[in-house]
Each structure stands twice: as structure tokens, then as C-alpha cells.
């Protein structure tokens, strides 16, 4: 009997510890605006997460490594996360049983539809910024396969940002047909969602339809966006700025009391929720010779993760209700045997009920973009980052240069990279003048 009690107490402690890891990660995300990406990465590496949450840990650490310029580390982490999520696509018998009898956190973290697409987007960016366009192209192809697995008649799992980044990669590779197809798909997703088409995507669509000779389509976009193509002149270069803005909202626990008909009683269940309206976008200002502007929202990742949760909320509530009824019967049966057993069963029932708060916590709240042209010998600056793109050999007339930065790192990374840059040393890799 004593051993049984010890085992029960041990199980409860383990369950509580599991919950702790999720809370700690949410806390890290909440503190990131103050601490920045490097400190957050250090703290993340100190959080002990159970093996079943490894994909979540790797996704967070891979993203932070991208922010800090450790592209190789980021690729390793995200590739492993991707493999784990693919392997976990099959339904687990034991995890389903554990989720039904105890709580949802006992399932392995297999990623939401948004996670499964954004892992390719993040990987594509890490490869691109490391100078490996061919590997970035592989990720663009893989994100297409991943998105095609989601129902085409719904927007869940279909990300305009993923299509746009794929288009950018094809454009950099000189594959303008594929680039235009990807930009069109990005446009279609935004239209389906009734979201604004950012100026960068408008420019990409107008420029490519114009140069590829799709006259009717070009005039359609021209009248819709009320502007012409913005093709670079013979002495001009183009810049495409990708900006990861903020951090997504964190899941919290919602406690609901509902009537369970089969037990003819009221039961209390806990389910995850996203509180409040979420963060607002904060555009990044850029300046070029005789020109200035700011980035615009291409994807509200915050809205996407909320939609992911909303899509599974019905199933989560049904499982939670069935679990609550099962626990109710367990407590009642235990009470019939002895008061003490009933009390233990009741404590287990209450403490083991936890909402699954796991998510890719550190995702940006918004993916913002800007596309601009300026004389190839001029400089492009990001005043907030105290950054000036002053590598003349990387810019030539007609060439497209990509710059990437996020809210929580002073670094700005670019493609193409300066020759002789060490891929392993992110300090050299940064093309920024640190504040």
C-alpha cells in the first residue's frame, strides 16, 4: 500500500514537472522582448524538457539560432525537428490512451499545421543566409509538398509567407516561371483570407507578369493595386527585406464547467486558449538614396496559430470531457473502496488535468516584407538597427539582394554574402554595424 502511494505521488510530481516546462517556455517567450535572442537561447538550453517535447525545443532553439546567426546550428536543430514531426504523423496508440486517461501533454509534440510549414520557411532562410541557394530551393520544394497535404479548400496550413519566400528563392535562382506561380499562390491565399496584399508582393507580381509577358494578368493587377510595375533601371539594384516582427501570443489554460450527459453531472475541464487580441505589428523603417519606406505585414503568424488551435478545439474539448467523465467514475469507485483511496484519486484527478500549452512559442507574431529599388552604388539603411548595407561588391545593376532581421536581435543578415565569409562564425557573418 505504501509503495502504491509513493508511486502515485511520484506520478503526480512528474505530471506537475511536465507542466512546469511548458510554463517556463511561455515565460521565456514573454521575456524575449526584454532579454533578446542570445540570452533567451541560453535560458532555453537550461530548461529541461521531456523527450516527447523535443520537437518543440528544437523548433525554438533553431529559430533563436537563426536570429543569432548560427546558421549551421539552426539547420541541424530544425532538420531534426522536421524529422521528428514527420515521424510523429502516425497516430500513437499509447499516447492516445495516456491523453484520454491523464492529459494531452502526454502526447509527443508533433507541431501544428503552421509549425510544419514554417519549419521549411525558417530552414529556407537559414540556408539562403548561409549562402546555399540550392539547399534553400530544396526547402521551397518541400514546403510545397507539405502544404499540398492540407485540404485545398481550406486555408489551414496554407501560408502566404511560405509561398512568397518560395517565389523569392526561385527568383534568385533565375526560375522566373516558378517564382511567378509561387507569388500567385501567395496572392490567392491572401485573397481567400481577405487580407491585404503587401506592396512587396504587389511589386513581385507586377514586375514578373510584365517581364514574362502575361499582359492580361499584368493589367488586372495594375488596376487592382492602382500602380505600375516597379522595375529597376539599368543602373539600379533591388533589395528584399524580410522582417520577423515580435513574438506570437502564448497559450494559457481555460477552465470550463460543462454538463456531461452520460454521467449526469457537471464536470470541469481545462483546455488551451489564446487570451486577448494578440500583439500589433510594428513595421521596420528603411532608407535608401532618395527613397524611404517601411515593411508591411505579409503573414500574421499570431492569427495562424490561433486558427490552428481553433481547428482542433472541438476534438480537444471532446477528449477533455470524456476524460473528465472517466476520472469522475474513477474517483467514485475509489471512494466506494475507502475514503483515503477516494481522496487520492480525487487529488490525482485534479492535479493531472492540465491543458496542453505547448506551441512553437518563439515564432514571430508577424512576417513583414518590403521590396525596394535604388541605384546599385547607393546604400540601404535600417535606422532602428543602426545598419547600413555598405558592401558594394554584393550589389550590381539588376541584382536582387535579400536582407533579414528580427525584432530581438541587432544583427542584419544578407544574401548574397561577402566572399570569404566564415559560415561557422556568426560574428563575421553579420553584415551589420552593431549598436
Amino acid at each position, binding site marked *: 500500500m505504501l509503495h502504491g502511494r509513493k508511486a502515485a505521488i511520484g506520478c503526480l510530481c512528474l505530471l506537475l514537472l511536465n507542466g512546469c516546462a511548458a510554463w517556463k517556455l511561455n515565460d521565456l517567450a514573454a521575456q524575449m522582448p526584454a532579454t533578446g535572442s542570445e540570452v533567451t537561447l541560453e535560458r532555453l538550453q537550461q530548461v529541461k524538457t521531456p523527450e516527447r517535447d523535443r520537437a518543440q525545443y528544437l523548433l525554438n532553439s533553431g529559430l533563436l539560432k537563426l536570429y543569432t546567426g548560427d546558421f549551421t546550428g539552426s539547420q541541424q536543430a530544425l*532538420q531534426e525537428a522536421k524529422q521528428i514531426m514527420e*515521424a*510523429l*504523423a*502516425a*497516430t*500513437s*496508440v*499509447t499516447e492516445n490512451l495516456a491523453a484520454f486517461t491523464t492529459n494531452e501533454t502526454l502526447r509527443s509534440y508533433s507541431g501544428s499545421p503552421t509549425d510544419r510549414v514554417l519549419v521549411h520557411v525558417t530552414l529556407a532562410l537559414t540556408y539562403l543566409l548561409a549562402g546555399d541557394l*540550392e*539547399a534553400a*530551393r*530544396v526547402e521551397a*520544394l*518541400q514546403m510545397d*509538398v507539405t502544404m*499540398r*497535404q492540407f485540404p485545398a479548400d481550406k486555408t489551414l496550413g496554407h501560408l502566404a509567407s511560405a509561398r512568397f519566400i518560395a517565389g523569392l528563392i526561385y527568383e534568385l535562382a533565375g526560375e522566373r516561371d516558378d517564382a511567378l506561380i509561387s507569388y500567385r499562390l501567395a496572392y490567392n491565399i491572401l485573397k481567400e483570407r481577405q487580407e491585404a496584399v503587401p506592396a512587396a508582393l504587389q511589386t513581385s507580381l507586377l514586375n514578373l507578369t510584365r517581364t514574362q509577358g502575361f499582359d492580361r494578368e499584368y493589367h488586372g493587377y495594375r488596376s487592382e493595386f492602382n500602380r505600375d510595375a516597379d522595375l529597376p533601371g539599368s543602373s539600379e539594384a533591388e533589395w528584399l527585406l524580410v522582417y520577423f516582427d515580435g513574438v506570437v501570443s502564448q497559450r494559457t489554460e481555460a477552465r470550463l464547467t460543462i454538463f456531461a450527459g452520460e454521467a449526469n453531472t457537471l464536470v470541469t475541464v481545462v483546455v488551451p486558449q489564446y487570451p486577448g487580441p494578440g500583439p500589433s505589428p510594428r513595421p521596420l523603417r528603411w532608407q535608401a538614396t532618395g527613397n524611404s519606406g517601411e515593411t508591411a505585414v505579409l503573414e500574421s503568424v499570431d492569427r495562424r496559430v490561433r486558427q490552428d488551435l481553433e481547428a482542433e478545439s472541438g476534438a480537444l474539448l471532446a477528449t477533455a470531457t470524456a476524460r473528465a467523465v472517466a476520472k469522475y467514475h474513477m474517483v467514485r469507485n475509489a471512494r466506494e473502496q475507502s475514503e483515503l483511496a477516494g481522496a487520492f484519486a480525487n487529488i490525482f484527478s485534479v492535479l493531472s488535468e492540465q491543458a496542453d500549452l505547448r506551441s512553437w512559442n518563439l515564432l514571430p507574431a508577424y512576417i513583414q516584407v518590403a521590396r525596394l529599388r535604388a541605384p546599385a552604388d547607393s546604400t540601404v539603411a535600417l535606422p532602428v538597427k543602426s545598419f547600413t548595407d555598405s558592401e558594394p561588391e554584393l550589389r550590381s545593376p539588376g541584382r536582387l539582394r535579400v536582407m533579414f532581421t528580427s525584432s530581438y536581435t541587432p544583427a542584419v543578415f544578407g544574401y548574397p554574402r561577402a566572399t570569404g565569409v566564415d559560415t561557422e562564425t556568426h560574428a563575421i557573418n553579420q553584415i551589420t554595424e552593431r549598436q
Partner: protein
Amino acid sequence: MRLWIVAAFSLLLSACGTSVQRVAPDESIDLSGAWNDTDSRLVAEEMISDALARPWLGDYTSRTGTRPAVIVGSVRNLSHEHINVKTFVADMERSLINSGRVDFVASRDERGEIRDERIDQDLNAREGTRNAAGQELGADFMLQGQINTIIDAEGKQQVRYYQVDLTLISMADNRKVWVGQKKIKKLVKNPKIRF
């Protein structure tokens, strides 16, 4: 009854441990359905043996009286997978050299290191052991190629189609003297249920 429980636990525990088994390098093992060492080796061997059986080789040898010098240029990975193209190129080089019917020239990266060494020899090696610059064998043909894929996925099933295209181009006049193509098609069924 207890015996059964012990047996079941033993079975479960045995599934948890790491096991290592040595296998022959040429043994075909397909785990995920992705491009693997067997694909790389078989495609390289088959395509190079096809290239060596075509008329360009006899034409060149009878015209010049020498074996052609071949260099492997870029093989682009345009597939859906992160394929280590270097192992594929190495497999092709091995097949070409071992055929004994062509001379093989070092690649651009390899040449850089050799040239550095030659400069170093000029400064530091004994006169009789130095190798002079300007004596390299120029390539007569360059082998270029690309790996493409088409993936068709539905539910837990995937058809993975690989197409490897190689082209041998004459360095003298840009003529394509041989075009080879190898196709691989795999049906991958992923499990619907796991333990």
C-alpha cells in the same frame, strides 16, 4: 501468468535499446524512401557504363589516338531532398577512373590545392623534385548534370520519382556528345499507427 508478464516486459525492454549491426556497404537498405547510398552508387555506375558504351569514346580515340580527358563539372541538386551530391560525383569519378578508358582531371577545388602545393614546391622543394607549373592535362570533355524529383503525396502514401540527367560536353566546341538519363520511382507507405 507471471511468466507471460515477464516475457511481455522483456519484449518491451528489448525494443527500447540501441542495436548496431554491421552490414556490407553495397547492401541495399531502404528506411525512409529518400535518396540513399544505393541510389547514388547504382545510378552513377549505370550512367557511366552507358556513357562509356556510346560512340563518342571510340570516335575520339580513333581521331586523336589518345584517351579523352574528362572532368566532372557541377551536378545540381534540383530535387525535393537535401542530397549530398558530392558522394554521387565521387561514385561517378570512381566508375570513370576504374574503367581505364578515359583520363580523369582533378576538379576546380582540387586543382586549387594542388596549385598551391606546386607554388610551395617552387620555394621549398629540391630542384630535382619540383613539379613545374603549366604542365597540367586539360580536359577534353566536361560532365554536367542535375537531379530532379517529382513528389506525389496523398495521405500516408508518396510516390517519389527521381530523374538524373547527365550531359557530356566537348570542351573544344561545346558539342553535347552524350546525354544520359536514369529514372527511379519509389512508392513510400508511411505507417498510420505507431506504438
